[in-house]
Every structure is written in C-alpha cells, then in structure tokens.
C-alpha cells in the first residue's frame, strides 16, 4: 500500500481542472469540468445518463484521455495514459459491468495478472487465498476466496471488485453506479463497508442518481448536466429538491406544435407485468397500463429503472414471470417476432446497431426486412424489384435519408441517417402500435427533430405510440400522457403533460415522491380487469 506523505486531511487528492473531452465523432462529453476530491471523503458524482460523468471518471482511470485540461493526483500533474498508470498512482475503479472471470475462483480473480508463484511454475493457491482472506478481513469485506465467481451473489462479486482494486494499492476508489445491480440488503451492506473504508482514509467516488443513497452516504457531491459541472456541494447543505432541480432539467424548452390528442380505443394493454432478472432482482413490479389509438404515452425515468426490460417483454426478447400484454385483445407475450409484427406492432429498438440494421447490407435491403415476404414485393418466386426500388426510393425521400443511392451500405451512413433508415422501416408498414425506445439517442439535431415530428404525425393519424425515453425534453414534449418509472414500478401517471415542470418530474424520477396506487391505476383505461 502506498504511504501517505503529501497532503494532510482536507486537502485534495485529486484535482481535475477544466477538463474537456471531445470524441472523434465530434460529440463533446465534457466541457470545462472542474472536479476535485478530498482525502477520505465519499464524493457523489451525479447526473442523468449522458451528462458526462462516466466519461469524466474514465479519464481519471486512464481509459480515455482528455482533449484539454489537467489532472493532478496528490498534487502531482499526471498524464494518465492507461489504467495501469492510474492503478500505479493509487486509483482503482469498480466497473458497473464486473471485470471478473466467472469460472475462476474469487482468489484467482484477485491475483489475476499478479499471480504468486510456487516452486517457479505453479500458482501458489494457498498464498492467493491467504491474501484474499487477509484483505477481506482487514477491510471487513467478506468473500469466500475459494468459491467460483459464477456461484456467488452479485453483492459478493462487487466486494471482489473492490478488493481487487485495494489489493493493487488503490487509495481512491471510483464506483460506477454500484447499487444498480444490488438488492436493498446488499446495498445496506455495501454502505457499511464504504463507511468503513472511509474511516481508514480511503477516498471514494460514488457515481449514482439515487438521491436517498447519496444523502445517506456521501460527504460532498458534484452534479453534472449536459457535459458541464453544475457545482460542488456539501451533502448536508443541500436538499433533495435542490439536487433534483440541478440534475434534472432542460436547457432549452422546445415547443413542438401538436394538436390535442383524441384518444380512441385501447390498442396495447399491459397488466401486472412482473420480471425478476437472473440475479434475483425484481426489475418490473406490477406494471399495468394502456396505450390508446391516437395518443403518445411516454415512459420517463432514469435509465435502468425497468424501461429496457419492459420493451424486451413486449417484443419477446425476454419473457416475464407474470402478467399479460395484448394488442387489440390478442396476447403478444412469447409470440415470435414475426407474429408480433403481423399484429401491427413496430419497434424502434434501443440498440440500433444490434437489432435495427444489418450494417453490411444496403439501405434498400434494410428498409424491406420486415416486408420482404409480402405479395406486393414479390412476383412469383422472385422479388418485384421495381416495387422494391420504388418503396426504397419513396422511403428515402419521405424520411430524407441523406445518401448516395438506395444501394449504399447502411453502415457507411451517419448515426442520424442510420436511425432514419430504422424509423423509415418501422413507421411505414401500417403499424397500429409503435414502440419507440430511445428513438433519438445520440443522433444529430436535424434527424432528432424529424423523427419527433413524424411520431406526432403518426399518432395523430390514429396510431398508438409508446415512447420510452430518458431524454426529458423529448418525453415531456411529445407525450400526451406520461408514466414515470422508478425502481421497476410506475411511480406516477400524468394524464396531461401540460403544466408539468422539470421539478415535479425530477422528484418522481429520483424516487422522492410516488403517487398512490389509485392515482397510478388511472392509466388503465379499461377498468374491467
């Protein structure tokens, strides 16, 4: 363990000055961010998804290099060119997705890359176990050194990750949303351990957007929004409401012209959906709602609160443990995607590169993937190329896909144009229900505006739209009515988005408030079950 000789208590162990990070594609993740850490504190780094907190921490851990700005560790200016440099300077990171090898034992994972030898050849297993045990006891992080990582619960995996950082001499621990995968009990346990580490002089960065946790455990907090720091506060000096206001909010309130919705019959009907993931965490808890013809129902919420799981269930990428979902009275749970599509459901998937497109195929081939078997595109055994060309050209024109020709590879297009190809397909085959999952994430302003307008237009023509978005602007502007998801449940339902403020949204999104069951039940317009 490195000894402490420089700064005394209260001084900064880490100073990041005027950090700017611009990625190769031109996206600015951080703009002039100042961030500092006092020795022995637990410091929360807060912000919505995409606020730039992960990027900032990646730079501190050497995974990314800042475009400009300076980083000082223990008063020494450093170029953190790789994680090993960061580790050598006592910085450790516990990733949200564990960097563990499942079939190896806890002790083996601990010593990977720095294995103790025995008689020159063999792993000194006893030594590895002993080392693990020693650290485990010293820091009060209880793990079973000989158990295989795949057999231990998530909470213990996280302890292994923390121990891995400690055994490599970390004095500063970056924890990326550590509680996202933990159950309540595990979270409580983790907090005891973190406080214990703090007592021993360790500094901890705690990335999170869970207000209660932050109030409970942190000393100071830095809030980020849109790549900028919104300031540093002593935790005890701010209220949850203030934090919520600083964290959740819009820079510019866009106002989109749209007529008032005239909702019709229920199209999608979801009742009591429950899902428990493979780590035994309840990701969906009694979700019930209806989406009607002609309306956009938005689902707002900080990412990771069950939205992804909900969409997965509705398009059969996963199966729920209980509950039902139907489109026009026909159950869709467990149906093959082909059948779901036949019922008139379209999905703009969150992961557009994995599901949305075949990047090596042409634009034309991508826009007909859901309708290639239809009569109008086939003449006997062969394609009706004329009809297909016409369809592709029509969609390219209608959706203003910027390209050389319909035969250009989709993978060569810009992100915005790729997404336009996806929506061109999903919006155009006469859907009765569109599931739009983060439809404008990471794409340029022009394409974003276009897709949003299109969604409104389609809903006004009588299509039911379920819009899932972590972008507050989007979900508040587009939705006619709105659900807020928090922790796998519906925290609130707003029949009308008019008059909703960022503050109100923030309080529900961050779990400060929750509507009563009766209030939430109003989203089920058909009450007879």
């Amino acid at each position, binding site marked *: 363990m490195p000894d402490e000789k420089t700064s005394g208590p209260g001084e900064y162990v880490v100073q990041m000055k005027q950090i700017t990070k611009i990625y190769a594609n031109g996206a600015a993740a951080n703009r002039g961010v100042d961030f500092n850490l006092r020795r022995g504190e637990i410091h929360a780094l807060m912000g919505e998804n995409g606020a730039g907190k992960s990027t900032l921490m990646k730079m501190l851990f050497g995974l990314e290099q800042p475009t400009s700005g300076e980083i000082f560790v223990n008063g020494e200016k450093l170029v953190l060119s790789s994680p*090993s440099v960061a580790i050598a300077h006592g910085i450790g990171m516990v990733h949200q997705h564990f960097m563990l090898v499942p079939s190896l034992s806890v002790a083996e994972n601990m010593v*990977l890359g720095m294995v103790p030898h025995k008689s020159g050849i*063999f792993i000194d297993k006893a030594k590895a176990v002993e080392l693990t045990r020693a650290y485990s006891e010293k820091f009060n992080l209880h793990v079973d050194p000989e158990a295989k990582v795949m057999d231990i619960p998530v909470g213990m995996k996280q302890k292994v990750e923390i121990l891995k950082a400690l055994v490599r001499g970390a004095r500063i621990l970056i924890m990326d949303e550590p509680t996202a995968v933990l159950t309540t009990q595990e979270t409580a346990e983790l907090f005891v351990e973190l406080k214990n580490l703090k007592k021993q002089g360790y500094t901890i960065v705690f990335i999170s957007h869970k207000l209660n946790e932050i109030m409970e455990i942190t000393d100071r907090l830095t809030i980020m929004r849109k790549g900028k720091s919104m300031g540093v506060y002593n935790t005890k000096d701010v209220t949850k409401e203030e934090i919520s206001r600083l964290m959740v909010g819009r820079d510019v309130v866009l106002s989109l012209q749209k007529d008032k919705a005239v909702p019709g019959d229920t199209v999608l009907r979801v009742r009591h959906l429950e899902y428990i993931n493979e780590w035994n965490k309840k990701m969906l808890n009694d979700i019930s709602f209806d989406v009607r013809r002609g309306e956009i129902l938005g689902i707002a919420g900080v990412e990771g609160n069950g939205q992804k799981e909900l969409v997965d269930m509705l398009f059969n990428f996963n199966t729920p*443990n209980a509950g039902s979902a139907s489109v026009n009275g026909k159950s869709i749970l467990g149906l093959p995607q082909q059948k779901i599509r036949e019922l008139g459901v379209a999905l703009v998937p969150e992961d557009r590169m994995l599901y949305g497109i075949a990047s090596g195929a042409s634009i034309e081939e991508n826009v007909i993937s859901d309708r290639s078997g239809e009569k109008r595109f086939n003449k006997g055994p062969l394609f009706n190329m004329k009809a297909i060309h016409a369809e592709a050209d029509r969609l390219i024109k209608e959706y203003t896909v910027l390209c050389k020709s319909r035969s250009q590879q989709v993978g060569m297009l810009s992100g915005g144009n790729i997404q336009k190809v996806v929506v061109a397909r999903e919006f155009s085959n006469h859907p009765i229900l569109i599931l739009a999952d983060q439809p404008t994430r990471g794409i340029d302003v022009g394409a974003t505006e276009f897709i949003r307008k299109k969604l409104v237009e389609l809903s006004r023509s009588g299509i039911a739209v379920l819009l899932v978005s972590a972008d507050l602007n989007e979900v508040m502007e587009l939705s006619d009515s709105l659900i807020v998801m928090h922790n796998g449940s519906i925290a609130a339902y707003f029949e009308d988005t008019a008059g909703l403020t960022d503050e109100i949204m923030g309080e529900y999104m961050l779990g400060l408030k929750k509507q009563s069951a009766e209030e939430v039940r109003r989203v089920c317009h058909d009450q007879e079950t």
Partner: protein
Amino acid sequence: MLNFLKMLATPEFFYSIIRISAPILFATLAAVVVEKAGFANIGLEGLMMFAALSGSLVSYYAGSWFWGFLAALATGVIMSLVMGFFAFKLKTDIILVGIAVNMMGSGGTLFLCKVITNLTEGKAMASTTGLITRSLCIPDITIPLLNQIPFLGRVLSGHNLLTYLAFLFCLLTSLMLYKTPLGLNIRAVGENPDAAASVGVSVMKIRYTAMAFSGLMSGFGGAFMSMAYAQGWSLDMVSGRGFIALAAQAMGGGECLGGMLSALVFGFAQALGIKFSAIGLDSNLASPIPYAVTILGLVIFALVRSSRIRKQHSAAALAKGKAKAES
C-alpha cells in the same frame, strides 16, 4: 457373438485402443487449450499432416528419430504461429485460416514430399514409407515390472514412447490450465478478455501462446502418425483425426480428462472396426464407425447439455417464484 466378445476381451484389443487413441488425444489437448483461450483451431488436421511429413523426412536425413521428432514439433509450432498471424493480425476468420491449412495439408504435403525426395533421392516419392526403417521410428518402451503383470502388463506395457507422452501430456495440460499462472491467464482471456486486459494481462500474447501450444500438440500427433503409428508418411494419413479431436473436445466438456475419455471412445470405435474387418467384415464398413460415433457423441452431448440447461432454467424459475413470494 460370444466368440466375438471373447476376441475383444484380449489384452491386444485393449492395447490397440490405447495406441489408436494417442494421436487423437494429442489433437484433443490442442483443441481444449485453444478453446479455453476463446477460439477454435480447425486446422489441426493440416498441422498434423505437415508435422508428420517433416518428422519422417528429417529423421531420415539426420538418421535419428530424435531429430525428426523435434522437427515435427517445430513444424507444428511455427505453422500455428503463422496461422495466428493471419487470424489475429490480419483479422482473417480463424475458421477460414483452419480450412486453408487443411487444404494445404492434403495436396501441399504431397507436393513437398515429392519435391524434397526428388532433390535428395533423385526421384519423386509419393510417400516416405520406403525411406523410414524401424530404427528411424520413435521407439516402443517396455516398462519393467508392469510388463510382468498378467493381462494388464500386455495392455499397458510396450507402447510407443509417444503414447505414454500423450497420456502424460493430458495430465500436464490439465495441470498447466489449472495450476499455473499461464493457465489462469489462458482461461481468463478466453472467458473475459476485457477483465484480463484490465489487470495487465496481454490478450494477444496469451492467444499466440495457446495457438503455439496447439501447434506443439499437433506436432506430437503428427510425429506419432508417421513415426510410430505407421512407418513413414503417406498422403492423407491423418484421415480426419484432427476433426475428430474437435468433436472430442466438445464431448469432453472442454476439459482434458473428458477429452481423454472421448478420445478413448473413438479409439475403441476404431479398434472395434479393425476387429470387425478381422472377422471378415468389409473394412469399408468398419472404417466409418469412428466418424459415425463422433456425430452420435456430439448429439448425445448436446442432448445432455440442453436438458441440463433446461433443469437450470426450471431451477431459476423456481428461485424466481420464491423471490416473488417473499417480496
């Protein structure tokens, strides 16, 4: 029928199972290690062909089996590293690299054999069987004391040096994988390369090492084919053992010991085939037995695996149910 069983219950029969399994076992170990490192080397067949050729030729020129044996090993290692270069550096699909090596391993070895013998012997030979004498082959070893034991002695003693090495290597490979830092790194790289890289393990170095290991094992296997199993090299003599090894790896659950058992099963199938032809069955009906057993083995393995997964799923569902009841 009874007579036939009696024929099988001889020490010679069990002896032949072990002997036949040895080259498959070498190739299986190669397959096990690369699989642990996270990829597949389907070029084992071709590697063994090249190793078999170089082994027999060098032992002839050097007049000593030992040098031939070393040449076979070197050939396997060098060629596997070239394969690694194409796969890892030039990003060629590793399956296609394997296919290319297998293609060259068939006609290409014959080409080399003819060219080299033409240069040195003055006439192009299509095999090296005419050049290799018994003394140029890797010797058999009689184990004192063990050979005194009735029955068992005749099963276990008197095998080729490489046969013993095959089973020894099975043990050593298992030790390497599970008891040494290298093995730990190989398994880590195969399962989660990001995790390995994050603690400073060089993923590339480990992949090349695993590749070289598979080349080394193919070298042993090739040497066995041309310098122990047969006297000298001939075209297509490996006859699918490199492919059977891929199946043995899968059937053995990706472990050395399981792979060894699978190799013995194939050895048994082939020994049985030979016995069948000995009692008058057409050898062409007996020869496909190991290949058919391979497919059958893969199917059985897959069925067992899928039922195990189903069990896990229902167990998980049960756990889910419980969790739900509690919450």
